[in-house]
C-alpha cells in the first residue's frame, strides 16, 4: 500500500483539526466552570490542599520511620514526586472518565453516539478538570523540593526517562480508569469505585515496595499495578533497579507498561461501546 503525500496531508489536517476542536471545547468548558465561582475556587483550593496534606504526611513519615527498606528520604520523595506528576497529568486528561456512570444514567451517551466525534473523546471533553490544575501545581512544587534532597547526577538520558515515566504513569492510571468505566456500561457503578482506585494509588504508591512482604508486593504489582507508576522508575533513576524484587529488565521497561495497558483498555472500551450500540442501551 502506498501512502501518498495527499493522504498524509489529509490525515495530518484531520488530526490537527481534531486538536483544534478539542482545545476550543476545553476553553468553553473552562468558561463554563468559571461561571460557577464558588465551585471554581473550591476545586482549585481543594486540589492544592489535598496534595499539600499528603506531602506533609509523607515528609513526617520519613522523619519518624527512617531507612525505609534501605531508601534514603530523598529517594522516597522522588517516588512521591513522580507519582504526583503522573497523577496531575492524568487528572488533566482523563478526569472526566469518572463521570461515565453519571453520563450513562443521564442518557447522555446516546446523544454522543450520533455526533461526529469519537465517544471517548467527547467524554474526555465533558468538563474542564479544575482540580488537575491544583494537582499539577503541587506536583511541580514537590518535585522541585525532591530534587534538592535526592542527590543525583542528572544526565539528559535520565531526564528523558523521567518524562517517559511521568507519561507512562499517566497512561497507567488512565488504563485503570478506562477499564473501570467499561464496567459502568453494564452495571450501575458507584462513583466510589473510581475514587477507591485513586485513593489506593495515593495511599500506597508513595512507598518503596521493598518494605512490603511478598504477598503485598504481588498485589501492588500484579493486581493493582501501582509499582509501575513511580516506584520502579524511581528505583531505576536512583540505581536500585537490581533490588526491587522484579526482573531488572521489567524495572527499566516500567514506563512502557502504562501505555501498553492503556492501549488494551482503550480497545476493550471500544468493543464494549460497539456492543452497547447494538443492544440499544
Amino acid at each position, binding site marked *: 500500500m502506498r501512502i501518498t503525500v495527499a493522504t498524509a496531508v489529509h490525515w495530518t489536517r484531520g488530526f490537527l483539526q481534531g486538536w483544534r476542536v478539542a482545545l476550543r471545547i476545553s476553553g468553553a468548558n473552562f468558561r463554563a466552570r468559571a461561571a460557577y465561582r464558588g465551585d471554581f475556587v473550591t476545586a482549585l483550593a*481543594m486540589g492544592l490542599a*489535598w496534595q499539600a496534606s499528603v506531602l506533609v504526611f509523607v515528609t513526617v513519615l520519613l522523619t519518624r*520511620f527512617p531507612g525505609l527498606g534501605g531508601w534514603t528520604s530523598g529517594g522516597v520523595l522522588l517516588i512521591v514526586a513522580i507519582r504526583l506528576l503522573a497523577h496531575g497529568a492524568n487528572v488533566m486528561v482523563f478526569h472526566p472518565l469518572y463521570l461515565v456512570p*453519571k453520563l450513562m444514567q443521564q442518557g447522555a451517551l446516546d446523544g454522543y453516539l450520533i455526533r461526529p466525534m469519537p465517544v471517548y473523546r467527547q467524554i474526555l471533553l465533558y468538563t474542564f478538570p479544575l482540580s488537575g490544575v491544583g494537582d499539577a501545581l503541587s506536583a511541580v512544587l514537590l518535585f522541585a523540593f525532591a530534587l534538592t534532597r535526592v542527590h543525583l547526577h542528572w544526565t539528559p538520558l535520565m531526564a528523558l526517562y523521567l518524562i517517559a515515566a511521568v507519561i507512562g504513569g499517566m497512561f497507567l492510571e488512565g488504563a485503570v480508569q478506562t477499564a473501570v468505566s467499561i464496567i459502568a456500561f453494564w452495571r450501575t457503578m*458507584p*462513583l*466510589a469505585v473510581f475514587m477507591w482506585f485513586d485513593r489506593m494509588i495515593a*495511599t500506597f504508591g508513595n512507598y518503596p515496595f521493598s518494605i512490603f512482604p511478598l504477598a*503485598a508486593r504481588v498485589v501492588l504489582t500484579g493486581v493493582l499495578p501501582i509499582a509501575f507508576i513511580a516506584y520502579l522508575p524511581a528505583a531505576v533513576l536512583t540505581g536500585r533497579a537490581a533490588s526491587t524484587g522484579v526482573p531488572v529488565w521489567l524495572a527499566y521497561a516500567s514506563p512502557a507498561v502504562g501505555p501498553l495497558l492503556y492501549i488494551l483498555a482503550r480497545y476493550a472500551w471500544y468493543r464494549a461501546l460497539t456492543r452497547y450500540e447494538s443492544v440499544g442501551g
Partner: protein
Amino acid sequence: MTAHFSPRLVLPPWRAMRITVIAELTQPSRYVPQLTMLVTQLALTWWLWRALYAKVTESAGLNVSQATSYALLGVLFLQFKSVDRSSNGDAMDQLMLDGTIAYWFTRPLPARRWYLIRMCGDLGYGGAWALLGYVVCRAIGAIAGPPTWAAGGAALATLALGLVITYYLQAIVDLMCFWSTINDSAVMAVQLASSLLSGAFAPLWFFPGWFQRADGFLPFESTLNTPLSLYVGRLPVSALGTQLAIQAAWCAALAVFTWWLWRRACARVTILGG
C-alpha cells in the same frame, strides 16, 4: 393538631430506613465491589503499617499494635459513608437537578426529618459493614482489643457523638445544593477533608504539631481521632470528660447551623423548569 403527635404518624416513616438496605443488598454489583475493596484496603493497610514499624518500636506515642489497630479502624470507619446514592438517582444534587426534590415538600413529613431518616438508613447500613469488618479483624487478631473495658466504653461514647457530628457535616454539604447544584467540588472537598483531618487516612498523631493544633479548631478530629485514640489507649480514659465536652459543643453548634440552613433552604426552593 393532635394528629401531629400520634405515634402512627411519627414512628412508621422511620421504616423508610430500609430503602437503603433493599437498594444495596438486592444488587450484587453494589456489595461485591464493596467487599472486595474493603478486604484489599484492610490487607494493604495492615502490611503497610507492619512494614513501617519494622525497625521502630514506638513513634508518636503509638506502638505497632496501636498504630495498626488505629489505621484499620480508620478504614472501617470509612464504611459508614460508603453508601453512594448518586447511582440510585437519590443524591441531593440529582434530586435538585431533575426536580424530584419537589416531592419532599408535598409530603406530610418535614423535609428535614425525611433527610434524617434516609441518612440514618445509610449510616446504619455502612455501620453494619464496619461492625462486620471489626468482628472479623478482631477474630484474626489484626485489630487489638481496648486496654480496658473503660477505654472501650469511652471509645463507644465518643464514636456515637462523632457520628452525630458526621451527620451534620454531611447535611451541610447536601444543603448547599439548594443554593447551587454545581457543588461537586465542595462535596469532594468535604469528603477528602473528613478522611484526612479525622484520621481515617492516617493516624493524626503522626502529623506535625502545627497540623494537629490547626486541626483542633475543626470538627473532623472529634469524629474519629477521639474515639480511636481512646480505643487504642493513646488518650487516657480520664480525658473522656474533656473530649465529650468538645464533641457536645460541636454537635450543638452544627445543629443550630443546620437548623438555620434548613429554614433558609425551604424558603428558597427553586426548581428548574417552568
